[in-house]
């Protein structure tokens, strides 16, 4: 009986129909909810607040994409991913977009069937150590044990650094943020290395944060951004332009609070962006007001940063390079024309 069913399936040519799949946007719309690969264990990027609701800059961007697609920022499911499984989760179609403080690298952009949209945070790899070690630089740490996430670019950079300086170290790599953090705080590792956002976040939840310092060494540049699968340009564009719009809104001083009045702005670019030219976003597959929804429900980049990483958060990270180009930073949105 089962065999018969199988033969019928084969006869109906089910196999060929499997290969041409629907576009990501159609899949998302049909499902009615965006599936976003994030993390739930790193405050600032993604972690539950006291009410158990996930908060963080990566979470905000997931919600922004949901706002653009559905006009409703709440239509998103967050899938927890680890450093190790994040790419396979995206490759397999388990999530529609991966926003998980992932560093843009040549190899990740080209070799694993995935592609980065644009950068939402210019970070750098650093090193966190206990203040009592008295270390002033990584070079003082010959022979140290170093906590690092397996499968991260930090793992490769730290190997390069120690090799080129002729120093020795022992890596401790566990693919579980809690376990790795515990190893560091309990003294199993002398150093915790990774992106400074992650390090500051870990420092902030130490019993006594002042017992730990982030060393001044910058091991590598670390531009963090959302990733999607290769071969779906429409979806790539959606993610890219949702991010651009948050930059542009800050540049044009449009906030959550004043976005309604900005719709009648005299600035033609603002009008276009907020849906003043019907049909402009048709090729993107979105409603005309998608950018308005993003700003209205999530806010501009400055608002997002302040809530999740800046003064409005427990991390209080300075914006550094993550300022608008006009303020001496690197954030630069192409014109909305």
């Amino acid at each position, binding site marked *: 009986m089962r065999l018969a069913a199988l033969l019928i399936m084969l006869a109906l040519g089910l196999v060929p129909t499997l290969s041409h799949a629907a576009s990501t946007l159609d899949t998302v719309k049909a499902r009615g909810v965006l599936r976003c690969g994030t993390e739930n264990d790193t405050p600032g990027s993604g972690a539950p607040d006291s009410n158990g609701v996930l908060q963080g800059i990566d979470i905000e961007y997931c919600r922004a994409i949901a706002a653009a697609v559905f006009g409703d920022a709440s239509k998103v499911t967050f899938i927890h991913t680890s450093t190790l499984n994040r790419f396979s989760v995206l490759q397999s179609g388990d999530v529609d977009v991966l926003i998980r403080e992932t560093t843009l690298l040549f190899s990740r952009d080209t070799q694993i069937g995935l592609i980065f949209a644009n950068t939402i945070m210019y970070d750098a790899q650093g090193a966190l150590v206990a203040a009592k070690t008295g270390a002033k630089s990584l070079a003082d740490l010959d022979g140290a044990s170093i906590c690092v996430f397996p499968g991260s670019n930090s793992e490769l950079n730290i190997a390069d650094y120690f090799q080129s300086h002729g120093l020795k170290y022992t890596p401790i790599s566990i693919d*579980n943020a809690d376990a790795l953090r515990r190893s560091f705080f309990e003294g199993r590792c002398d150093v915790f290395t990774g992106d400074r956002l992650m390090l500051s976040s870990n420092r902030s939840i130490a019993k006594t944060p002042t017992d730990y310092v982030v060393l001044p060494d910058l091991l590598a540049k670390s531009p963090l951004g959302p990733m999607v699968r290769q071969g779906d340009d429409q979806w790539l564009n959606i993610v890219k332009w949702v991010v651009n719009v948050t930059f542009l809104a800050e540049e044009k001083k449009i906030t959550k609070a004043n976005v309604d009045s900005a719709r009648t702005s005299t600035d033609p670019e603002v009008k276009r962006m907020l849906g003043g030219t019907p049909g402009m976003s048709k090729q993107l597959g979105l409603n005309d007001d998608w950018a308005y929804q993003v700003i209205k429900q999530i806010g501009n980049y400055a608002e997002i940063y302040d809530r999740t990483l800046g003064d409005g958060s427990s991390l209080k990270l300075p914006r550094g390079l993550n300022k608008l180009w006009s303020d001496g930073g690197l954030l630069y949105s192409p014109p909305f024309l």
Partner: protein
Amino acid sequence: MRSFLRLRALVNSPVNIGITLACLALLAWMVPPLLHWAVLDAAWSGGPEACRAAAGACWPYVGQKYGFFLFGFYPSEARWRPLLALLLMLALLAGNLVPRFWNRRLLIAWPIILALVVWILGGGLGLPPVPTESWSGLPLTLLIASFALVLGFPLGVLLALGRTSKLPFFRMVCTVFIELQRGLPLVAVLFMASVMMPLLVPAGVTPGKLLRAYLAFTLVAAAFIAEIIRGGLQAVAPGQAEAATALGLGYWRTMQRIVLPQCLRVSVPSLVGVAISFFKDTSLVTVIGLTDLLGAVGAASRDPVWLGHDVEGYVFAALVYFTFCFSASRYAAWLERRLQDGARIARAAAVEQAYASRLAIRSEASTA
């Protein structure tokens, strides 16, 4: 008097005196620090400050977090749903323990109650939907173990029949499958299911993590169940099947009516053993990112307000696992004795009957 005699064994020979002293030394070394940590120096009330002041365990942490331990990331306003699901599954398990209920109705109860549990947890049809990613804690642990056993059982029976079949093709396929599943670590099977399954289904269909966990556990459980059933099949006297065949019963009829019922009766204690080991092994789903009981306990330790009390959480988890597994293993031992007794009583009854009939024959003979 008997207990006194038993106690005398503590000191009745130089060797036993030595052993007793060594045991006492071990206890003296282990028990006081444990007692201090768990009871005397522990914080029993108050908040995180009280815990930081106490030298021992922090039980208010468990008091504060046990809801999270049990139900994890499930939306906290709807905790009644995982609670109800949990109670339903416990009731089902309890029903299973009573041999009097072992009948067809129980077999039907399993899928019905599991479907009910899935509906209560997942929503739809009137209940607000909750994505499977949010299912966590003890209900998830029980759900995965139950699914593995309920789906693995029929598959395991088929595999066992295949492996003992006279047809070489089925024998070979089933043997390879069973040995493959038994030769691989469960973690690896879980990982493979989570990595490979999305590549083996049509594009656009995304099996959730939970489904992948079901698949992996079901396949492995089926292989282990198959081996137990195979052992049970060997315990059934070959004459039984031969007699049934001689009576003209077909293969499936023979198996279904004659061989399997006897085989299952023998296999039940071992099957309980498999259930226990799979219940424990559900803790491995944290490897593929699901939050079971152990995962929820780990996640709770992340709360910055209560940092550093993970051991208390693990003690809680250990107690829950122990309660389930220990009672199940006691139950299996009881069942085994009962089945043996049952067999002995049956044998004794048969002997008695034979004896009685012989007596009757003899008396008949004597009267004649």
